[in-house]
Each structure stands twice: as structure tokens, then as C-alpha cells.
């Protein structure tokens, strides 16, 4: 016991062992290896050395085989254990301390000796072993030849497999047909042959089919009602909040005004403010609301509304740009001032040098277009309703309607020859009209007016409009109140008058001659009638669908008519197309007073009591397949309203793209391009 205690530190630290000067006796070569095994059991490197020594194991003395049992159990025994053959290994005889000390003092190699308690022997460490121990003590690898920084050797082949987890080769079963499967197949085949397994019959393709598509889907649709989801109830907004912002709260005045409203218009919910959650009362209408919702869902038929997605831009007609349609009247540069009342009518001389105007102040004036100089004034004493130049250049006469009279004035223009002819024409020889027809003579008389040196046609009713035939010999007058004799046609050369041989329908407003053919247009309040004067019959009736027609103008080619109405609508009729309006333009907020076509440019205009005149591009194509092109171009302003009337008449210059407008403000304006 004592021995063992003293030996233990030696074992731990051999260097100290030398210092302490322990001397171990009974050196045994054979036990060297045992000692080795004990000391360096944890090192794999040392095991090799042990294995090497194992080869000489047979020669060495048998060693203890007691295993890992406390050695105290053998303390009092004579043996320390058993060898491999089961024989007891006897304890060696102990030297006393003094002897062992002396022996260790003598033996220079004593410091290498270690006592192996297990095998009860002294082991002498070799030089290599001490070196090994020293290296271990320094914390180095025990063997000097071990290189801790050896170059790294990559043992795996990474190139072959992306995932090197399983680099196993393909198993064989993958290549050979499965025995069990073939057995199963054979089993099925037999079952089919026996008729145990039956297949579905192949579907037959219908031999007949619907040529015009499948109508089954529509039939399906009608069979049952499609489910239409109920509309979602409106979610509460800010005002339904228990503490809405101040702007949602109605003032007391507003709440009072709610009481004056009808029950339906009254707001259902009046926002109120509560400072805290706990002060909110119960919503008194909760049950009522949900009941009404249920009632709605139950009773209201629901229809799926089909919304068509159309770009509003695409609905706009593609019109050419205004710039490409120049020239057209744009600006007012000239004004013809001198009248003292509203100018009711204007007419431009066919060459475009002069313009005649008739006014409410009872005068007819002739102006020079270029300078605005008033050349002649006739005082007629009564409001001049209508003026019209003779369309012949060489016949400078002017037809003027004053009250129930129509005056044919000699303007005094033209050379001597023309003047002579005009004067001749305006002389009434003998009153021959009486023998022509009795009813006409009673309502109309041709008189010579000495004061103005002109012809006076006395009608029996107020004449509202005069229109010349293109050859300058005939003129038609319209008396709206004339009933069956409302429209008369006068022949200037023979001083004859005839009634229009047609039955009148409605109140006539205006009349126009066709620009090239013997066709006569009569505009009544509701529609326009087109008569053939040669065959004496009605050709067409243009249904305007307007409340009250106010004016009419015929395109110089004769196939298109524009009609202005008192509700501010302008209708364009293409007579080849239909008797309904081709286009209806709603531009003016007030009555259209007059419409006009340009003689050579593709322009037309309308003027209205709202003090504006509109200019349009109205292109008529020779190709009958192409519809007329109508483009609004310009709004001409400048006139001022007077007496509720604005622009009363408009006429185009015969050769320039200029528009004359006559206003109720007693001025005539010229708009130039």
C-alpha cells in the first residue's frame, strides 16, 4: 500500500521520478511491452509499436489477465493475477527501501525505470519511448515523423457524381424484367380471356351534326336561372364612424333643413360624434336595415348588366383637321354701318362687288363690299323683310319685300346697255294679268311705282321671302298667311303671276328654286316638299323631324339641302340617300335664323339668334357611294344681341370664301379667310 502510493506520482511524471531518485529494481525485458501498452493506450501510433512487440510475445513471460479490477483485491494474495493459461502469477519479492534506493543510486538508468503495478514488474523506458513522452509533454504529435501539415489528399472523386452521397452503381434489377410483373400480366391476360374483366365500350361519334353551330349552350342557358350574386351592401365610411371628423358632421341648420326635405330625399343616417366607445348607444335601425336588405334580396329581380367596354374616343367620327380645309371665313375685318334698325336681310350681288341689305328701319342700302361705303339708300317706309339680287350679272335689279309689297328696284349699276334693258323690264305696259286668272288678280296686282321708279307687286298678305330663279326671269314669293295662295311665282318679262299648282300642307316658310333643274322646294314648318315644275307633281317629301323649320338652302349641285330650325338644329338632307336627314347638327342654343351654301367653295353656314354664325365644311362628292363630309369649322362671333335677336341673315360672297352676317345690332359684318 505504501509502496503503491509512493509509486503513483512517479508514473505520472517520469522526470520528477529522476529528481526524487526512486530506484526500481527487478527489471524485466518482457514487461517492457506491457508497460508500453498501458502508457500509450490512447495513441494509435503507439499501438503499432505494441503490435510489433506482440510478435515477440510468446517469448516473454505470461502476463496478468485479471482485467480492469481494483488491484486492492489482490493486495493480500500471494499472486497478482493469472496468466493466459490460468496459472497464478506470483508476486515478486520486495526489496526493502534502502536496497532499492541504493540500487537506484547506482544505476544511472534508474530514472527510466517505472514500476508496473498491474503486472508487478519494473519497466525500463527505451530512448524512443522517452522521446515520445517528451513530445507528448510538449503537446506535439508523439511521433517525430508525423507531419501535421501534410499536403491534402482528396480521396473522393467529385467529378463523377454531382451528389456524392450515393455513388453506388446501378443495381441489376433495373435492367432485367421483373418476374412478378410478368406473372401479374399473365394473370390479367388469362382473366380477360376468361371474360372476368370487361372494358367500357368505345364512345360513338355522332354521324349527324348541327351545320350552323351548336345551339345546345343557349338551350342550356334558358333551362335554369343563372345565379346572380347579390350586390354587396355598402360598407360604412367615415361618416358612419362613431367619432367622425368634423367635416362629416352636419350643422344644426343642415339637420333642420333635412326636416323640410321629402322623406325619400332625407339622408338615412346623420353622423354623430361620441367621445368614447362606451357612450355609443345601440343602433336602433339594425333590425330594420337587415330586414330591408333581406327584402331587397328576396323581392328585387336581379339582372346581370352587360357592360360594353368601348373607348369613347373611338366613337368620335374621324374628321379631317380644320387646317386642311382652308380657306374658310375666320376673322371679321369689315363692318358696314349705317342702318338704324336690325338688318333683316342681305343679298350679295352675283359678281361680289356690292351687297344689298334691308333693315327694320325701312331702308334698303347698297354697300360696296371692298370699302364698306354705302352707295344707295331707298327709304321705303316699312320694315324690309327680304332683299334679293337678280342672279343675272347683266340685270342689276333688286327684289325687296316690304310688308305686303314686293318692289323690283333698279339699282343703277351696269353699263348703259344694261341700264336700258333693266329700265325696259321695269316698265309695265298694260295690265294684262287680269285676264289670266281671276283668283290671282284679286290677290295680286302689278303696279308701277313712280317714286322709286320700280315695279310694285302688291300682295294680299305679308311677304316673308323672295327667291329668284337662276335665269333671273321668275321669282317666287312666300306669304306664310296666304293659305292656298301662299306661294306665288311671278314672271318678270311678261308681268305674269301664277299660283303654285299644288295643294299646300302646313304653313310655308320659305321656297327655293333648284340651282340647275326645274325643281322647286317649299319648306313648311314641319317638312320640305320637293316639286317638279315641269311635270307638275310632288317628287319628294323631306321629313325634317324638327319642330319648326326656319330656313332652307340648296347645295349648288342640287342634291343636298340644309334646313335650319327654330330649335337650333340644322339638318342636312342627301336627297339621293333618303328623305330622312343624313345628319342633324345641334349647334346653336337658340333659333337658327338662316342657312347658306357657298356657290363654289365646299362651305355652308348657319346663323342664329345666339349672336353666332357657324361655318361648316360640307363636301359633296361626285361619287354617289361616298356620303357628304361635314366638318364644323368655325364659330363666328362679334354681333351683339338686341331685342332678343342675334344674327338674322348670313350670305356667302359668291367668289371668295367670305361670309356676310347681318345682325339685329344694325350692323353687317364681313368675315374673311
Amino acid at each position, binding site marked *: 500500500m505504501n509502496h503503491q502510493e509512493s509509486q503513483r506520482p512517479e508514473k505520472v511524471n517520469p522526470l520528477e521520478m529522476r529528481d526524487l531518485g526512486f530506484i526500481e529494481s527487478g527489471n524485466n525485458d518482457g514487461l517492457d511491452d506491457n508497460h508500453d501498452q498501458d502508457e500509450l493506450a490512447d495513441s494509435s501510433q503507439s499501438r503499432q509499436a505494441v503490435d510489433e512487440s506482440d510478435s515477440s510475445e510468446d517469448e516473454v513471460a505470461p502476463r496478468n489477465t485479471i482485467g480492469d479490477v481494483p488491484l486492492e483485491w489482490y493486495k493480500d494474495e500471494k499472486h497478482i493475477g493469472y496468466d493466459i493459461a490460468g496459472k497464478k502469477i506470483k508476486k515478486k519479492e520486495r526489496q526493502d527501501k534502502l536496497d532499492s534506493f541504493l540500487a537506484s543510486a547506482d544505476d544511472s538508468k534508474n530514472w527510466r525505470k517505472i514500476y508496473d503495478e498491474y503486472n508487478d514488474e519494473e519497466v525500463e523506458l527505451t530512448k524512443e519511448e522517452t522521446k515520445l513522452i517528451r513530445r507528448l509533454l510538449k503537446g506535439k504529435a508523439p511521433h517525430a515523423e508525423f507531419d501535421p501539415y501534410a499536403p491534402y489528399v482528396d480521396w473522393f472523386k467529385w467529378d463523377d457524381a454531382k451528389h456524392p452521397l450515393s455513388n453506388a452503381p446501378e443495381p441489376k434489377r433495373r435492367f432485367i424484367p421483373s418476374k412478378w410483373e410478368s406473372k401479374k400480366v399473365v394473370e390479367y391476360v388469362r382473366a380477360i380471356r376468361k371474360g372476368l374483366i370487361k372494358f367500357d365500350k368505345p364512345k360513338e361519334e355522332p354521324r349527324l351534326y348541327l351545320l350552323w353551330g351548336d345551339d345546345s349552350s343557349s338551350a342550356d342557358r334558358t333551362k335554369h336561372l343563372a345565379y346572380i350574386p347579390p350586390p354587396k351592401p355598402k360598407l360604412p365610411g367615415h361618416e358612419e364612424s362613431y367619432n367622425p371628423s368634423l367635416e362629416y358632421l352636419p350643422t344644426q341648420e343642415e339637420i333642420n333643413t333635412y326636416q323640410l326635405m321629402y322623406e325619400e330625399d332625407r339622408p338615412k343616417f346623420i353622423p354623430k360624434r361620441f367621445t368614447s366607445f362606451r357612450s355609443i348607444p345601440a343602433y336602433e335601425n339594425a333590425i330594420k336595415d337587415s330586414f330591408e336588405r333581406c327584402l331587397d334580396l328576396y323581392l328585387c329581380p336581379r339582372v346581370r348588366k352587360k357592360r360594353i367596354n368601348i373607348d369613347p374616343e373611338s366613337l368620335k367620327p374621324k374628321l379631317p383637321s380644320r387646317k386642311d380645309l382652308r*380657306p374658310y371665313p375666320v*376673322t371679321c*375685318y*369689315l363692318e358696314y354701318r349705317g342702318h338704324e334698325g336690325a338688318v333683316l336681310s342681305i343679298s350679295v350681288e352675283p*359678281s*361680289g*362687288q356690292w351687297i344689298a341689305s334691308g333693315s327694320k328701319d325701312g331702308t334698303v342700302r347698297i354697300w360696296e363690299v*371692298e*370699302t*364698306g*361705303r354705302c352707295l344707295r339708300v331707298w327709304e321705303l317706309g316699312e320694315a324690309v323683310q327680304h332683299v334679293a339680287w337678280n342672279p343675272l350679272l347683266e340685270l342689276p335689279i333688286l327684289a325687296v319685300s316690304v310688308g305686303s309689297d314686293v318692289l323690283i328696284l333698279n339699282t343703277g349699276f351696269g*353699263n348703259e346697255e344694261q341700264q336700258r334693258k333693266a329700265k325696259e323690264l321695269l316698265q309695265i305696259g298694260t295690265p294684262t294679268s287680269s285676264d289670266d286668272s281671276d283668283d290671282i288678280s284679286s290677290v295680286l296686282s302689278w303696279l308701277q311705282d313712280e317714286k322709286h321708279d320700280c315695279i310694285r307687286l302688291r300682295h294680299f298678305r305679308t311677304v316673308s321671302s323672295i327667291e329668284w330663279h337662276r335665269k333671273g326671269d321668275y321669282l317666287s314669293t312666300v306669304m306664310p298667311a296666304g293659305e292656298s295662295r301662299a306661294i306665288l311665282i311671278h314672271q318678270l318679262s311678261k308681268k305674269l303671276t301664277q299660283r303654285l299648282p299644288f295643294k299646300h300642307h302646313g304653313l310655308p316658310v320659305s321656297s327655293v328654286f333648284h340651282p340647275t333643274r326645274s325643281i322647286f322646294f317649299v319648306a313648311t314648318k314641319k317638312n320640305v316638299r320637293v316639286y317638279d315644275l315641269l311635270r307638275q307633281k310632288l317628287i319628294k317629301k323631306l321629313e325634317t323631324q324638327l319642330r319648326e323649320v326656319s330656313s332652307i338652302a340648296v347645295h349648288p349641285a342640287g342634291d343636298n339641302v340644309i334646313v335650319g330650325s327654330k330649335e337650333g338644329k340644322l339638318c342636312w338632307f342627301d336627297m339621293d340617300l333618303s328623305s330622312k336627314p343624313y345628319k342633324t347638327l345641334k349647334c346653336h342654343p337658340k333659333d337658327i335664323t338662316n342657312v347658306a351654301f357657298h356657290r363654289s367653295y365646299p362651305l355652308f353656314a348657319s346663323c342664329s339668334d345666339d349672336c353666332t354664325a357657324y361655318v361648316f365644311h360640307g363636301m359633296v362628292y361626285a361619287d354617289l357611294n361616298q356620303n357628304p363630309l361635314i366638318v364644323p369649322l368655325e364659330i363666328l362671333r362679334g354681333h351683339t344681341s338686341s331685342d332678343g335677336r342675334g344674327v338674322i341673315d348670313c350670305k356667302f360672297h359668291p*367668289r*371668295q370664301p*367670305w361670309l356676310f352676317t347681318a345682325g339685329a345690332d344694325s350692323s353687317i359684318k364681313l368675315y*374673311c*379667310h
Partner: protein
Amino acid sequence: MSLEQFLLAKGISAEKILEIEYIRAVAPRKEEEPSPHDDWVSAVDGSSPRFILTGCCDGLGRVWKEAGLCTHILEGHSDAISSVSIINSEALGSVTVATASKDRTLRLWKFDAEDSNDHPAMIRAFKILRGHNASVHSVAAKTSGDMVCSGSWDCTINLWRTNDSDTDGDVVSIKKRKVNSKAEQSQSEGEAVSMLVGHTQCVSSVVWPQHETIYSASWDHSVRQWDVETGKDLSNIFCGKVLNCIDVGGEGSALIAAGGSDPILRIWDPRKPGTSAPVFQFSSHSSWISACKWHDRSSFHLLSSSYDGKVMLWDLRTAWPLSVLDTHKDKVLCADWWKGDSVVSGGVDAQLRICSDISIP
């Protein structure tokens, strides 16, 4: 506008170097008293430094020695005079002038410019030129003085001889009216020598600046150049607007200035090949342009009168008018240079205004 204001207005930094082009202000320094007429003054000619010839809408032509001093009254037209032209003013004794009128005739007059009385002398025409079918709008005299041309509403330009019927027997048939022969002065009638046809609308203005060429402006939107000998039009320029006045002058006496039914005064250079676009456009007026005249010495200056009541003096090198004469109360119908340093203009207010003392280099 001062330079500082200009910089502020244009947002130009004061650090920048500005190139300032200086053009002398040309403005009349003296406004002479108006010469009153009985009606609108529709035509004026100031090509003679000795007198001013005006035409009036009452059918009378007047000769003014100076402002307010009328020496002669040309009496005979039955309608408004639309244009006047001085044919030769160099002759010391008598001066020949031509007037065109709305009564479809032109009349030639002779008077002595030197004699001056307190009371204006009444002059009768020595020759009446008949042949136009519509009112005559414009008359221009050849530089040599033996012919005049006239433009009319009947779309034609007529050429007439101006010499006295006594010396010229072969061209026209001469009729001495018996009524007129009783009068102290004989009147002869002339017929057109030739007629230039080509315009489709009213010929509103003619000029005869060179011996062989006549320029005409018309309501059919064109300016035409005529060869007098052949009667053909050499070139025409289309403008798109009705033209009321034309004048040829400027650099090399070749630039055509014309104004019409819009506020833009256009100047063409006919020598520029293949172009119908104006080389200059002046657009300070606000209404129709009634007259335009080149200065006879300076090739840069011209004047224009407009229905907006203004007469403007222009320099080709600037876009803005050198000065605006705003003396008329209503439309200005005619304007001309006089003596090289004055502007005479007549208008609807029946006044002939003379603005003098304009220094043009």
C-alpha cells in the same frame, strides 16, 4: 423699351454680350393740317413734288399745292374716283394726269400746275377713255408717259394712249361730241389699245414700273407680271388672299409688295427661282391693307396703309414698323410718299393728311 426692360422681358442675363443693330428711327416730325374733302378720299398720288393729286368719292379730283391749298378741281366723273395717276409732271407748262372711276371710264386731264389762284380752278377732262364693262379700280402710267393701263372689275387690264387726239389720228376713232364742242374745251374719247386678259376676278391694282412690264394684283389671289408687247402674263404668284394693292420697288426695283384682305403686308422677290413664298411678311396691321408704296430713293423703306386707320412705315431690315401714323379717324384708303420726305394719306374721314419731315437716308 429701354435696354434694361428688354433684358428683363426676354430673361437675358446682363452678363451676356448683345449685338445691337441700330436702325435710325424714321418718324415724321411734323403733322400738317388736314386738307378737307367733301367725301372719302379714295386715291392719292404724290409722285410729283410740286403738287398732290387726290381722288374723291364724290367724283372730283383735286390738286393740292400744299396742305390745305387746293389749286385745281378735276370735274367730270359721274361716280367715285377709285384711282389717280400723274402721267407726266416734268413738263413745265401743263401737267397730264389720269383718273379712274367707278363710272367705268378713265379720264385724262391737263392743267398748269404753276398757276395758283385763291379760288380753285375747275378743269374738264380732255379725253375720256371708255371700254371697261365694270368699274375701273386702278390706273397706272407708263414711265415715258405716253400710255396708261387700267385694271377693272371686269377682270381685264386695258392699255390706253394718252396723247392728244389732235396729234394722234390713226389709232382711235375720234368723236367730237356736239354737246361738248359747244363748250370751250373739246373732249375726245379714246379706246383701249389692247387688253390683257387672264385674271379671273377683279383686277384691283396695277403698276407699270418698267417700260415693258406691268404688274397686277387681283381678287383671284394672284399677282401677275405682263409683257406689254405680247400681252402674255410672264409669271404669277399666288398668295391665297384677295389682293388690293401692289407696288414694285425696293432693291433693284424688283421686289413686289402687296397687301389685301388680311393684315399682312407681303413682299415677294420674283427673281428668286421656283418660289411663290413671300420673302418678307409684315403683320402689324389689324385689318385689310389698302395701299402700299415703296420709297422711290431708298430701297429699304416702304409704307402701308390699312383699314384699321393706321399708316405704317417699314424698313425691310426690321420686323416692326419704324413708325405708326395714327392720325386718321377711320379707314385709310390710300397713301403715298410725297417729295421723298412726306407721307400723304387719305381716308374715310374725308381728310388728306400730310406727315412731313421724315428723314430717310
